[in-house]
């Protein structure tokens, strides 16, 4: 499934067995709208959070708000994304700051929080010696589900993530893509209010990656699950999330709704010139524009706060500096622009 098909739910789910179509007493009746996992207020709130690993400050004075829905936690490797998730899970004790998850203080109510959380770790993780259905059922029981309910939900979520046919196979025989799916299954088996997904598409082939993103999109937008998706891959976050928190070097560079971050403060132009390009870039930057070179000689120029026609400004500058404009067209701002801008501002 490609990105363009985001409005279509994952068609693979149609293959699930008839038994999972029956409603249980614990499930909504057929035809009923799915119950919402939405919560009032932010799902996660961090205030002045600092985490230190020995001498290295992994998070420095991080303050951020994660709104309900799908929030991307974006940043390059080493930005502190995984550390932030681990701090929220209570794995890492912060040196300073306060965190609340689903309105509960992480320092005082970690177990209550974890009972309502699902966590899909970045690294390959499983419980040895189990097949998929017993593993997912076991995780459900660890999260508090009775054995019978845990087993039933294990079957259901394994079909949901596309492992229905492989659910009796030992986990050690799974491919990388299947291991990613099983990690997602164990994270959602107990119907969490909030999901932490740490690099969920790592190591997946393009088809598997698209399917995983479609599942995440479906969970967030059709099943009403709040989630935080940590990734360094901008397209993953842009496809699945409505909000983004951009991190860089242990700090929050920017956060907010993706659409708002992309569009409100200026316009982006694709520009190719002939002449002294490096000098012209210097002129553009001197004029307060953000310039980013792409691989194919086309630079992306961000003109902040521009209500007027930015193209005329660029033509005027080019004429003044005696460079020829060979290509100029307004561009659709992407999350990459938001990211580049945010990290650049840092």
């Amino acid at each position, binding site marked *: 499934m490609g990105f363009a098909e985001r409005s279509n739910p994952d068609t693979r789910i149609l293959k*699930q067995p008839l038994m999972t179509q029956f409603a249980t007493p614990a499930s909504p009746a057929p035809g009923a709208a799915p119950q919402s996992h939405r919560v009032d207020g932010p799902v996660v709130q961090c205030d002045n959070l600092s985490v230190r690993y020995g001498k290295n400050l992994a998070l420095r004075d991080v303050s951020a708000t994660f709104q309900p829905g799908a929030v991307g936690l974006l940043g390059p490797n080493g930005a502190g994304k995984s550390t932030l998730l681990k701090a929220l899970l209570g794995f890492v004790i912060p040196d300073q700051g306060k965190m609340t998850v689903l309105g509960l203080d992480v320092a005082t109510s970690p177990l209550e929080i974890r009972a309502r959380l699902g966590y899909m770790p970045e690294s390959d993780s499983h419980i040895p010696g189990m097949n998929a259905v017993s593993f997912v059922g076991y995780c459900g029981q660890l999260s508090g589900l009775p054995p019978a309910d845990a087993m039933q939900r294990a079957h259901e979520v394994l079909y949901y993530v596309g492992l229905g046919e492989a659910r009796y196979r030992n986990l050690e025989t799974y491919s990388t893509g299947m291991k990613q799916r099983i990690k997602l299954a164990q994270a959602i088996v107990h119907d969490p209010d909030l999901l932490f997904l740490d690099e969920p598409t790592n190591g997946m082939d393009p088809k598997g990656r698209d399917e995983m993103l479609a599942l995440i999109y479906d969970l967030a937008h059709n099943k009403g699950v709040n989630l935080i998706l940590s990734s360094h891959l901008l397209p993953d976050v842009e496809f699945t999330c409505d909000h983004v928190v951009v991190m860089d070097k242990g700090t929050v560079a920017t956060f907010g709704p993706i659409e708002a971050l992309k569009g409100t403060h200026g316009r982006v132009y694709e520009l190719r010139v002939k002449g002294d390009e490096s000098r012209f870039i210097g002129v553009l930057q001197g004029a307060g524009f953000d310039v980013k070179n792409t691989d194919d000689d086309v630079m992306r120029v961000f003109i902040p706060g521009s209500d007027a026609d930015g193209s005329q400004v660029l033509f005027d500058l080019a004429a003044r500096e005696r460079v020829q404009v060979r290509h100029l067209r307004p561009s659709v701002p992407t999350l990459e622009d938001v990211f580049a801008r945010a990290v650049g501002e840092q």
Partner: protein
Amino acid sequence: MPIHDQGYRRYGGTRSAIGTAWRVMTRAGVMSIISKRQFIGLMLFAWAPFVVRVVQIYLAANFSQASFLQPKGETFREYLDQQGLILFVMTVYIGAGLIANDRRANALQLYLSKPMTRAEYIAGKMAILFLFLASVTFAPAMLLLLVQTVFAGSFTFVRNNLYLLPAITLFSLAQILLASTTMLALSSLSKSSRFVGVMYAGLYFFTTALFQAIRGITHQSTFAWLSPSATLEVVGDIIFRLHPRYELPPAIAAIVIIVLIGGSLFILDRRVRGVEIVT
């Protein structure tokens, strides 16, 4: 509602209280071990001495010619001593992989992302080992006492040796706690269960050999504290009201056992974490 929308549904059923996840872990661990054929063989081997003792008690109770086989308080001490080897084998067989396998598969972060504390995780793992070790020490020893009462047809032996009930309990507890905490601590140090087994065996045999060597040279057994198994024997003798077999003050022996258990718990506290921090 389309069929595909039913693939993931809200859960509105009951949930168990927070703080009970360790029981799930223990149950799963026990079931996983008893499903192994090797384990059945090991249990038969572990209970063979019990059968021999039952025969001994039966003969002593029913045949006057075999009165020399009459059990005494020491008989139960000897029985628990004999079970020491089986305890060692069971500890290695069951305990070596308990945490090491989870570390190999990065399962700790999965466990600790559930509503479970690190202490619960350790308790859940320890309970697995505890149950099996109790099933080859405490349980058969207590059963022997019951068998003796049944075959003798009176409570006279139990009444005359009332100290046996707390003695068996206390000594079994010391044996099991020492074995399970040290094994779990070693298991948390490695990702290879085989290596853990070798480490535990090495610790067991090396310390015993070291103590015996020093004893041979010095002709004194005050260095029994070097060997956990010899130290435990001293503690056992005291608990069973016997003269200590080594010249190690009982207080020192008790302190050594407590330090070993405490040290193991300290290692477990350091090693069982959701994230491994390398600075």
